[in-house]
């Protein structure tokens, strides 16, 4: 079920092309946010952190959700490619999670007056991040591929269950964190130029997720293909 080296190489190259498009998009987002998006009157320039913080959170939650979804599919179909994809998605999710957990406090310091507060949204996001750090540690600790895939699929599904709580935590608990401006029942509540930058940034981070996860998945496929070829 693991494809050959040529297929893995093609997957890596496809991922690299998509990632390159995403990186160009990120530069465009930075220019758009700095030069073509108004400064918010009350928060000042620190508000512009939002244009990279929220899309990173979106990409991170999507990545962690995909770990759970592909983990569940693995338990059903037992296709090792699903496990390789879950591993790739977890690693990419941790990169985006790092951005969320650093840019959030950098915004919080000037706006809330503190780097961190044990608020429901922040705490749940940190738990989710640690859960996937544990997921990667678990993968590194088990040598048998099918056992590793089974155990990590269960952890991935538990992470997936946590994702809706992270998003809905601002409704479920009294929290300092701002309410969603986009993913909510009513219409988006933003200046159109700010909304444009946010939507473009969400698109760019989605492309970055697809590019990075495809490249990382291709690397996993290649490792497996070479292992099969070497008779491991």
């Amino acid at each position: 079920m693991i494809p050959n080296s040529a297929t893995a190489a093609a997957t890596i190259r496809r991922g690299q092309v998509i990632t390159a498009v995403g990186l160009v998009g990120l530069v465009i987002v930075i220019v758009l946010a700095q030069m073509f998006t108004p400064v918010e009157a009350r928060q000042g320039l620190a508000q512009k952190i939002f244009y990279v913080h929220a899309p990173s959170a979106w990409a991170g939650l999507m990545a962690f959700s995909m770990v759970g979804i592909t983990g569940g599919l693995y338990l059903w179909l037992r296709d090792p490619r699903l496990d390789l994809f879950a591993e790739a998605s977890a690693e990419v999710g941790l990169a985006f999670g790092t951005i969320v957990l650093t840019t959030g406090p950098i915004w919080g310091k000037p706006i809330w007056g503190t780097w961190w507060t044990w608020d429901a949204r922040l705490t749940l996001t940190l738990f989710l991040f640690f859960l996937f750090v544990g997921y990667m540690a678990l993968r590194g600790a088990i040598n048998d591929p099918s056992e590793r895939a089974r155990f990590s699929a269960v952890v991935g599904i538990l992470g997936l269950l946590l994702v809706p709580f992270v998003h809905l935590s601002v409704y479920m608990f009294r929290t300092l964190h701002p309410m969603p401006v986009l993913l909510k029942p009513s219409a988006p509540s933003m200046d159109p130029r700010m909304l444009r930058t946010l939507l473009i940034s969400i698109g760019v981070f989605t492309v970055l997720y697809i590019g990075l996860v495809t490249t990382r998945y291709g690397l996993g496929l290649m490792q497996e293909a070479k292992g099969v070829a070497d008779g491991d």
Partner: protein
Amino acid sequence: MGTEPANGGYMVAAYVIVTVVVFGYAFSLWRRARRVLKD
């Protein structure tokens, strides 16, 4: 105008972190890919 809080340094720090993490991770994947594609 001109009454916004002066907190541009925080914004610069956040954008630097995003750039370093995204480009850094993409570069690390590119290096790993180059190594395996050469073999």
